[in-house]
């Protein structure tokens, strides 16, 4: 507001002021005489100010340039020489190799290409694991207590094919014993790899021998429907071994008596 008042006083004459302008300047100069006096004063002050600023000595700028160069040493990318040094070639800024864009792009590409084989290997490993529900077929050559071999996964897929074939033929031995049916007090009795685990760790001594025998029997006749036989045998054995254990339940056991009834009878172990 004060700037507006000053401009009105400097630029205008008292007679040309509008009512609003006179109201604005009334506080500064109520009469025409005061208006003219203020006008002259402000113009004279403006003249003094317009005479120009004082310029510092050039040595001050030189000293400050030296201080600046000391503070920010080295080649500055944005620095260009003054006009008087234009005859000399402009210094090209030195950029380190590792800061160049193409080097960085090449390094990233190299890393990606170098790790590409590892991607395929990871996918291959995942495909080998298969589904956990499929029972692993024991390797006939494998010894008791031995660790589960990786090649059992191939046997499992083979058994699955065999089971499918038996179902179609109608002469199947189905042992539909879900994993939960095998939940017993014996923690080591699992659905897969049961025959490879030392059953004696979880069973009584008397039962251990029987379990071992049936364990051996379970290894036989694995050609046609070995998975079903083993499942039935394992569940049946467990049920017989723990007749009072209510946690053991056999949901569905369908046995075809058409094939090898004699062998089937061998698996029926009396509970007493």
């Amino acid at each position, binding site marked *: 507001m004060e700037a507006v008042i000053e401009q009105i006083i400097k630029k205008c004459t008292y007679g040309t002021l509008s009512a609003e302008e006179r109201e604005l300047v009334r506080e500064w100069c109520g009469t025409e005489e005061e208006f003219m006096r*203020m006008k002259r004063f402000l113009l*004279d002050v403006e003249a003094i100010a317009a*005479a120009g600023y004082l*310029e510092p000595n050039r040595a001050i700028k030189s000293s400050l340039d030296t*201080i600046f*160069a000391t503070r920010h040493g080295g080649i*500055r990318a944005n620095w260009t020489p003054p006009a008087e040094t234009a005859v000399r070639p402009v210094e090209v800024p030195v950029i380190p190799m590792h800061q160049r864009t193409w080097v960085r792009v090449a390094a990233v590409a190299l890393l990606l290409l170098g790790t590409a084989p590892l991607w395929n290997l990871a996918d291959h490993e995942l495909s080998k694991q298969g589904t956990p529900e499929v029972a692993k077929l024991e390797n006939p050559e494998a010894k008791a207590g031995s660790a589960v071999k990786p090649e059992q996964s191939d046997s499992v897929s083979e058994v699955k094919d065999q089971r499918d074939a038996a179902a179609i033929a109608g002469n199947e031995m189905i042992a539909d014993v879900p994993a939960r049916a095998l939940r017993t007090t014996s923690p080591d009795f699992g659905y897969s790899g049961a025959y490879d685990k030392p059953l004696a760790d979880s069973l009584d001594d008397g039962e251990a021998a029987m379990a071992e025998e049936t364990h051996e029997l379970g290894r036989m006749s694995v050609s046609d429907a070995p998975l079903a036989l083993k499942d039935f045998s394992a569940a049946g054995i467990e049920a017989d071994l723990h007749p009072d254990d209510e946690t053991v339940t056999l949901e569905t056991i369908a046995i075809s008596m058409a094939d090898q009834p004699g062998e089937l009878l061998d698996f029926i172990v009396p509970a007493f």
Partner: protein
Amino acid sequence: MRLFKKEYGSLSDEQLVIAMAGGDQRAFDHLYGRYAKPLMSYFMRMMWKDREKAEDFVHDLFTKLIHRPGLFDPSRSFKTWVYSVAANMCKNEYKKQEIRKNTSNGLDSSYPVSDSSKNTLNEAHNALFKEAFEDQILVLDAKHREVFEMRHFDGLSMKEIADVLQISEGTVKSRLFYATRYLAEGLKDFRPAHTA
């Protein structure tokens, strides 16, 4: 990699300070070009027309800016900040000296008084008015004189003066009004031979 040359003249003071803090020499050159003369004139007025002392203060102020650019808050106006620093430097100097120099008894040869038209009559008028003005403004107390000089000689707005002196705008307005009325009244008997 820059494709276009930076136009330093179009950058604001705050942008120049940021660039200068990053080591941009040209940004510092532009900043110095903008504020060296006004600050020199300011220190000349505040330091009893002592040119050497005024140049030392200009050098010290810019040295402080080079070494510690973080003292400036980019959210603030650089103009008000630099004048605040200059005002504080003068106050500290006053405390050291604790005296007030009586300076101009005559025309200061180092202070340019001629206008661009080089009219001899105007030059004489301006010189005489300047002398009378300096005598009159010395009678004014420091707080009113400071506001008046910042407004008319440093070109600061009311808000900028309030920020520099850490006072309200209303106080700035009242002090400016009082100083203007007092000086105009005191110089009413000075009748110039030529009025622009």
